[in-house]
C-alpha cells in the first residue's frame, strides 16, 4: 500500500478548486478582500454552494455528496494558497462532529440545511487557551428536562453568521458536544476578538445559564475524531499557505535588484527559499498521507499522521512567513506587503489546535514506546 491514496474525486476537486480560486480570488486582491471580509465570504459561499462543496462530507440521504474529509482537503489547501478566511473550516468541523457523533434524528435535523448552504461553527477552546480538547470548564447541567449551559468559549470563528455551533461542555463529568442554535446564541454575550490573522472573524461566546433542549446533546461524542479532522484541515490550510508565501518570496527574489544583481542570486536568500520549497513538499506529503489514513479508518495511524502533519507544517509555515518579511527588506516591514498577511496567517495556524511541541509530546509515546 502506498502512503498516499489519491482518489479520482480528490483529483477532480483539486482541479476545480485551483481554477475556482484563481478566477474568483486572485492573489493580487488579498488586501481588497480583507477590507471587505463579509463580501468576500458571500462570494466564496455562493461559489462553494454551486460546486456542492458545502455538502461534501454530508451523507447522500441528508442532501450531501457522501464523500470524506479527504475530498475537502484540496479545497482548504487552495483557500490557504489564496488566504481565504471563510467559515468553510468551522462549518466542516461542525458537520464532522454531527456525522460522527449524532443520532439519525440529529443528523436529519441539522445536516440538510448545511448541505443547502448553511453556515456552522465549533466552540472548543476556552479562555486559558489549552489545546487539550478535554480541558473544558464550560458546564452543562440537566435540570427539569433541559440542559443549563454555563461557561465561555473563545476563538469561535464566524459565530455572528453561524446558524448553529457545536460546543464542548462537561455534563456529568464527561466531555460532551452540544448544538447551540442561532436563536439560543442570540441570548448569549458574543464579542468579537482581535486576532493576529486579519482574515479571520473570531468571537468569544458566554453562556449564562443558557437553556437547551436535551435533543441537542450529541449522542456519541468523539473528541479524537474531531481533533484529527481539525488537524487535517489546518494542515491543508498550512500547506496552501506555504505555497502562497513561497510565491510571494520568489516574485521579489526574481525582480528586486541590489548591487546590480537579483537578490535571489545571493545564497543567503536562495538557500532558505529552497529550504521552504522542500518543507512545502514534505508538508504536502504529510497532509495527503494523513488524509488517506483518515479515510482508511485506523485510529492510531490517523492520529500519528494528523499530528505529524500539523507539527511539521506549523513550524515550516512560521519559518517561511518570518523569512518572507526579512527577504523583502524595508518593504517587508509595510502593511502593504503580502508577506505580513502570510506571517500572520502562519501564526494563527501555528497556535490553533496545538503547536509543534504540543503534538511532539503526543507523538513521542506513539512512535517510540
Amino acid at each position, binding site marked *: 500500500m502506498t502512503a498516499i491514496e489519491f482518489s479520482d474525486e480528490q483529483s477532480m476537486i483539486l482541479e476545480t478548486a485551483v481554477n475556482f480560486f484563481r478566477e474568483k480570488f486572485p492573489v493580487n486582491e488579498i488586501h481588497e478582500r480583507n477590507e471587505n471580509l463579509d463580501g468576500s465570504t458571500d462570494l466564496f459561499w455562493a461559489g462553494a454552494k454551486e460546486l456542492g462543496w458545502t455538502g461534501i462530507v454530508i451523507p447522500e440521504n441528508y442532501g450531501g455528496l457522501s464523500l470524506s474529509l479527504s475530498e475537502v482537503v484540496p479545497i482548504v489547501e487552495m483557500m490557504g494558497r489564496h488566504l481565504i478566511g471563510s467559515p468553510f473550516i468551522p462549518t466542516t468541523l461542525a458537520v464532522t462532529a454531527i456525522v460522527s457523533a449524532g443520532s439519525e434524528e440529529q443528523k436529519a435535523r441539522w445536516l440538510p440545511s448545511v448541505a443547502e448552504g448553511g453556515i456552522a461553527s465549533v466552540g472548543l477552546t476556552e479562555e486559558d487557551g489549552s489545546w487539550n480538547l478535554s480541558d473544558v470548564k464550560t458546564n452543562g447541567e440537566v435540570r427539569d428536562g433541559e440542559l443549563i449551559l454555563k461557561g465561555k468559549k473563545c476563538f469561535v470563528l464566524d459565530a455572528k453568521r453561524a446558524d448553529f455551533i457545536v460546543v464542548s461542555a462537561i455534563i456529568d463529568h464527561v466531555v460532551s458536544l452540544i448544538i447551540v442554535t442561532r436563536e439560543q446564541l442570540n441570548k448569549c454575550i458574543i464579542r468579537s476578538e482581535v*486576532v493576529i490573522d486579519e482574515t479571520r472573524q473570531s468571537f468569544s461566546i458566554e453562556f449564562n445559564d443558557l437553556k437547551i433542549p436535551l435533543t441537542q446533546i450529541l449522542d456519541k461524542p468523539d473528541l479524537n475524531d474531531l481533533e484529527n479532522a481539525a488537524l487535517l484541515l489546518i494542515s491543508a490550510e498550512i500547506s496552501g499557505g506555504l505555497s502562497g508565501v513561497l510565491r510571494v518570496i520568489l516574485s521579489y527574489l526574481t525582480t528586486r535588484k541590489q548591487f546590480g544583481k537579483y537578490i535571489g542570486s545571493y545564497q*543567503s536568500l536562495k538557500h532558505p527559499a529552497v529550504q521552504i520549497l522542500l518543507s512545502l513538499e514534505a508538508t504536502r506529503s504529510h497532509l495527503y498521507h494523513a488524509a488517506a489514513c483518515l479515510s482508511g479508518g485506523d485510529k492510531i495511524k490517523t492520529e500519528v499522521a494528523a499530528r505529524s502533519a500539523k507539527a511539521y507544517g506549523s513550524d515550516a509555515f512560521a519559518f517561511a512567513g518570518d523569512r518572507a518579511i526579512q527577504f523583502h527588506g524595508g518593504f517587508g516591514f509595510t*502593511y502593504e506587503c503580502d508577506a505580513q498577511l502570510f506571517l500572520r496567517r502562519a501564526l494563527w495556524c501555528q497556535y490553533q489546535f496545538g503547536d509543534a511541541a504540543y503534538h511532539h509530546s503526543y507523538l513521542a509515546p506513539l512512535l517510540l514506546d
Partner: protein
Amino acid sequence: MSVSPTELAEFEVQADRWFAENKPEKPGFILPETFMEVGTDEQFKFLRAWQNKVYENGYVGLSWPKEFGGGGLPQVYQDIATKAMATHRVPFLLNTIGLNWAGPLILSMSSSEDKKKYIPSILSAEEIWCQGFSEPDHGSDLGNAQCKGRKDGDDYVINGSKIWTSLGMYAKHMILLVRTSTEAESKYSGLSFFLAPMKTDGIEVQPIRKLTGEYGFCQTFFNDARIPASCMMGKEGDGWRVAMATLMFERSAEGGQAGGLSMMDLSIDDVIELAKRAMRNGKPAIEDPFIRTELVKLIVEAKGNVYMADKAEIPALEGEWPGAVTMSIKLRATEFKRRMCQFAISLQGANASRYIDDRAVDEGMWQRSYLNAFSGTIGGGTTQIQHNIIGERILGLPKD
C-alpha cells in the same frame, strides 16, 4: 578626568531615586517600542516631553561637552543613568537618531558653530532628527543612492526620494546622503552628506503603514528642494565616508553616543517571568519540559552576549579575530530579540493567536514586539548584510 568611587556611588543612588520617583504614569494610549514606531501626535508629544524632562534633570548627554549643553562628565556617569532608565522601565528617549548617530557625528566632525547650533536642541528634544539614507531602489546597496543634488549658487538643489524615514513626520533636520556627481571615479565618491532642514519648500513626507498596522515611518520626496551648501558635512564627495562613520555609531561599533534608553527594554528576564504566568495547556508554561529546554537555551545565549561585552574590554582575550564582538553587537542583539519574541508567543497556548487587545496576554505586546523585531533585523543594514560585512572584514572571506 579621574572618577571618585564615592561620587559615582552617590550618583547611582540619586539616579535610581529620580527615575523611581519620576517614572511617568502609563498614558491612556499604547506607547511605541522604539523611535521607529512613533506614529501618532499624542505618542510624539508624550515622548518628547519625557526626554526633555530627563535632560533638564541631567540624565542624558552626561558625557557630552558642557559648552554644548552636555554634562562634561566621564562616560561612566551616562552608563549609570542609562542603566537606571532600564531598571525602572521608563519610556525610551525619542530623539535617538540625534542623540546616538547625528549628535556624535557632529561632535566629532563639525565646527564649533554647528555644534552650538545643533547639539543642545538634540539633547532637549526640541529639534528631532531623522535619517535620509535608504531609497526605494537602494537600501542594502546604499552606495548606489541616486537622490540627486545639483550645485546652484549657494545652494544644492535636491531631487529624488528617500524612504523608510523613521520620525520623518516630526523631524526638523535630516542627515541626508545625496549624489552630487555622476562622473565621479566610483559610485561612492559621487556622494555628499548634508544636515538638511526638513522645513524646506520642495520637501514632502508621506506616511507609510507598517506590518503591525501602525504608522511611524514615511517616504520623503524632494522636488527642487534648495538646501544651503553650508549644510554640507565634510566636502563634496565625502558623503560615503561620513555615512559610514554614522553607521558605525548606529551599529554601536563606535562610542560617543549621548546614551539613554533607545528602546523599550525587553529582556530574557521578562520572558522568564512571562513563562511563569502564561498558561500552556492548563499549566504555567514554565512547567512544560520542552519550554524549559528552549528557555534555558535562550538564557545561555543571552548570558553569552553579556559576557562577550566584558570580554571585549580585555585586549589579551581578543584572540585571532579582533572586532568580531563589537562589529556583531547589532546583529546579535536584533536576531536574539526576534527569536526571543517568537518564543515568548509560544508560551501562550491558543491565546498566542491574539493581537493587540486587552484580552491578549500582556495586551498583545509580544505579538507586536515580534513583528516590530524586524525593524532591527532589516533597518540599519540587514542581518544578511551584517553577515557579509563580518565575513569579509573579520574573517577575510572573499566578496561574492
